[in-house]
């Protein structure tokens, strides 16, 4: 599982952490590792749900890299968001098995239901949808990941239930 989702509940329920102190703490804790950039980015992402633009200069300074280098790495990985996600994050699988099992229809349904595109967040801040390429759950395709939890054999109905849950509850499904 991608670490970005593990603290989802935490990020959505508590008051937003002071992002500067999260960034600085990550640099202080992990900065001496060899190749510290990715662990630091993961750590920040895990805690804040995204990597704030202000992190670029601070990490660059901390690791003695250029801002361009840090920016290059963040922008390379789709999993690093640069703005805060919605309260719930749905990652719909687009890989071969899921496509074969109709994930394209699910995607169309999902975006139509929410009125947003992929990689977007609903206006009320409740849901962010993102594509993902293989969750390793091919036998139970089509699959999605909601707030870090894998759901297999997704149907439109199951999807609607999940969306209802997202809209109605403050916390994760």
């Amino acid at each position, binding site marked *: 599982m991608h670490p970005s989702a593990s603290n989802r509940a935490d990020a959505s329920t508590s008051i937003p952490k002071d992002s500067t102190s999260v960034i600085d703490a990550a640099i202080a804790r992990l900065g001496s590792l060899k190749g510290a950039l990715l662990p630091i980015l993961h750590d920040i992402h895990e805690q804040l749900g995204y990597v704030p633009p202000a992190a670029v200069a601070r990490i660059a300074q901390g690791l*003695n890299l*250029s801002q*361009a*280098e840090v920016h*290059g790495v963040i*922008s390379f990985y789709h999993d690093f968001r640069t703005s805060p996600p919605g309260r719930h994050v749905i990652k719909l699988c687009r890989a071969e098995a899921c496509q074969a099992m109709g994930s394209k229809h699910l995607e169309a349904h999902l975006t139509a239901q929410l009125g947003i595109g992929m990689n977007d967040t609903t206006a009320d801040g409740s849901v962010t949808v993102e594509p993902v390429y293989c969750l390793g759950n091919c036998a139970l395709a089509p699959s999605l990941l909601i707030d870090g939890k894998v759901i297999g054999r997704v149907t439109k109905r199951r999807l609607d239930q999940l969306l209802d849950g997202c809209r109605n509850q403050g916390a994760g499904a």
Partner: protein
Amino acid sequence: MYSNKVLDNGTPARTSTKTVALQIDGVQITVPEGTSVMRAATDAGVKVPKLCATDSLEAFGSCRLCLVEIEGRRGYPASCTTPCEPGMKVKTQSKKLATLRRSTMELYISDHPLDCLTCPANGNCELQDMAGVVGLRDVRYGYDGENHLQAEKDTSNPYFTFDPTKCIVCSRCVRACEEIQGTFALTVEGRGFGSKIAPGPTDFLSSECVSCGACVQACPTATLMEKTIADAGQPDHSVVTTCAYCGVGCSFRAEMKGNEVVRMVPNKDGKANHGHSCVKGRFAWGYATHPDRVKKPMIRRQITDPWREVSWEEAIGYAASEIKRIQAKYGRGSVGGITSSRCTNEETYLVQKLVRAAFGNNNVDTCARVCHSPTGYGLRQTLGESAGTQDFDSVDETDCVILIGANPTDGHPVFASRMKQRLRQGAGLIVIDPRRIDIVRMPHVEANFHLQLKPGANVAVLNAIAHVIATENLAKLDYITARCDLAEFAKWDAFIRLPKNSPEALEAETGVPAVQIRGAARLFASVPNGSIYYGLGVTEHSQGSTTVMAIANLAMLTGNLGRKGVGVNPLRGQNNVQGSCDMGSFPHEFPGYRHVSDPTVRELFSTSWGVPLDGEPGLRIPNMFDAAIDGSFKALYVQGEDIAQSDPDTKHVLRALEAMECIIVQDIFFNETAKYAHVILPGSSFLEKDGTFTNAERRISRVRKVMPPLAGLADWEATMAFAKALGYPMHYTHPEQIMAEIASLTPTFAGVSYDKIERLGSIQWPCNDKAPNGTPVMHEGQFVRGKGRFMVTEYIATEERTSRRFPLILTTGRILSQYNVGAQTRRTQNATWHDADVLEIHPHDAEQRGIKDGEFVALQSRKGDTALRAVVTERMQPGVVYTTFHHPESGANVVTTENSDWATNCPEYKVTAVQVTPNGKPSKWQQEFASFEGVQDSLLPKKDA
């Protein structure tokens, strides 16, 4: 991009002594081990198509155009990333390769605007060339698919544009920024089809980019493009010449359309810069044709009179008659001249010759007085020659650098990039500087030690380092025994071992923890090749000469002189400051640093010049000012130096200028000194004349005329006319003849001629029978003076002390985008980055005084006061403030004092006790400056509309 008329070998040269023999398209070729197949092919005269490869960068293997077939190997390896192996048989052309290359090109072009005819790179585009080479005729994919053609152009940089629609993401720009410049300001943003070159998360102007131009030069398309080329079109010819900014002395190709420069491109064959440049040399040359250029000679009787534009004859006739009148009235010694470190060797030589032969005295000095005169003195005393010991290439072999009182990333950026390359390879770095200059810590470079000393404590720190090396038995005694004067060494050794020179004892004076000094000393003493690089932060102190000698001591002590990778390396400030010193610009020395009191030398010059010569040293610049105020010095001929802005204690300087009866200013602009002048002779820029410059590594390079002098005469011609009017005609029709005369009179230049420079590209003096091709590294085998001489360097604190009234120390310096008094760079778009001088102050000092960042503050010393904006920054240490002197109205030198180096009178610019207070308003001096400027402007002839 670089001109496509210049051969690009694709990948860098290898220097291995082992060789590899192989066959390429049937041609047998032998190359050094590690050479790529691509480079071997170009060596064999075979061109392999390529896009992502260029010989200034390591191979990358991304464009897939340089594929070749190698007998016995599967597939189609990229020739750029494939090293040559013995017996290889390479085919660069086949039907299959043609198909592969064409298909690759087809993909590139399917996402490229087809506007070749109106594209600024038209005629000089590698993409266009390669489309032609592979025979692309059709793009089967059409142009309607996903593409980047709507991407927005970034025009934020004043000198070049970034047009991502034309980009093929070959990464040459990104790699140039990393490998060559070492700024790491560019990256590939995103991935896959969405990949885009980006200067970080912002535009070019607000990014970390330092506008060195390396990326623009590396770009094979019109993506990164000089605005001047977009405006003017491609050049029709180019001329190799030498940059007229700093002492690095980069070789450039001036790319021309007729008489108009359209682009300056660093010359790949240039031995000082190896094809690299900085924002000043590469882009800030527009001043040469700025409307402010003085194009007609002018005269006036008094400085309150309006200027009258006159012919050259009249101006020079008037100047000569004034000199004669003044000498008749006040004596032969009442006049003098100042040579310029901005002008050529030949011009400088002529000015000192004019003073000595036509004025008949030795009152000649040069701006080196105020920068590197202690270098000349200190190195002469210890090693025997007044110059740096190495070439720049030497840094490639150093294992630890001591950088003291120099800020190369701002002051000598092209050399700094070179040094950073070596630092990234792992060489150690010890920075001795009161400020946390950039190189202390910048992407991928970090100093092992930053000895953040108090300004003025250089000698104390160097003594402490030497003390540690001596007392911990780290000195290279074998080297010292073989090469140095042992009696002098013993004296010095006894001195340096005294407990008062220990880092602990000196801690209070230096402000540097002893443990750091011990660590730095041990590091420096432990490496095979240690080198010392320094700048004006060493020389511009009351103990400037002592510091230079302490540096030489340290180099001898650690056995670091006389081979590659080591040495004492003064980073010279101006383009020809080394040359102006070599050419006899000092009042006590003829060309080649020979004392005027030496009868043999005087006889030599006297015979050649056909006049008797004075054996008494003349006045130094500060003595001239003092004598002017006393009333005994009345006339001054100043070529290309703005003493009213650049010399310390401005008010004293201006009083001296006001006291003189005739000041002759020869300059390309109506500078600050010109406001006090009686005769203006229009100067010529480096683009308008032939000659030579000598850079910090003693390298003599040609300056070549690419356009006629705007005012009709080159500086050397004007000096000749002046000499003639004084009754001392000189007979040269070309600067080449002046150099021939210099060579005939100066042993270290004996072998120098324009022919030889033409043949070798450039020559490092000494160049004579012993070293016919010049001397990259000096003191090999033995020192020039025979035995190296350790000099006792007692630390004596400057008299300039902080007090309750002036509790802070002001130190001054430079920034990257501006040059010296700013006369040139202020007249270019470099002002975008620095349009006013600011005062850097530590947050602690700012808070204590209630000063906010960006606020106008008053800066006062016992000499004067001024006002400028504050920048609150932790680069400073508490107690120390910093400013630059690039803008005349900021009056940095109104504040600096008359203190100077004990041996050479080099001013103590780097230490002034000051107070800084909030709510600054323009000082009285600044108000007077503004009103005087208004008056002087009104006296100038009206400009033609």
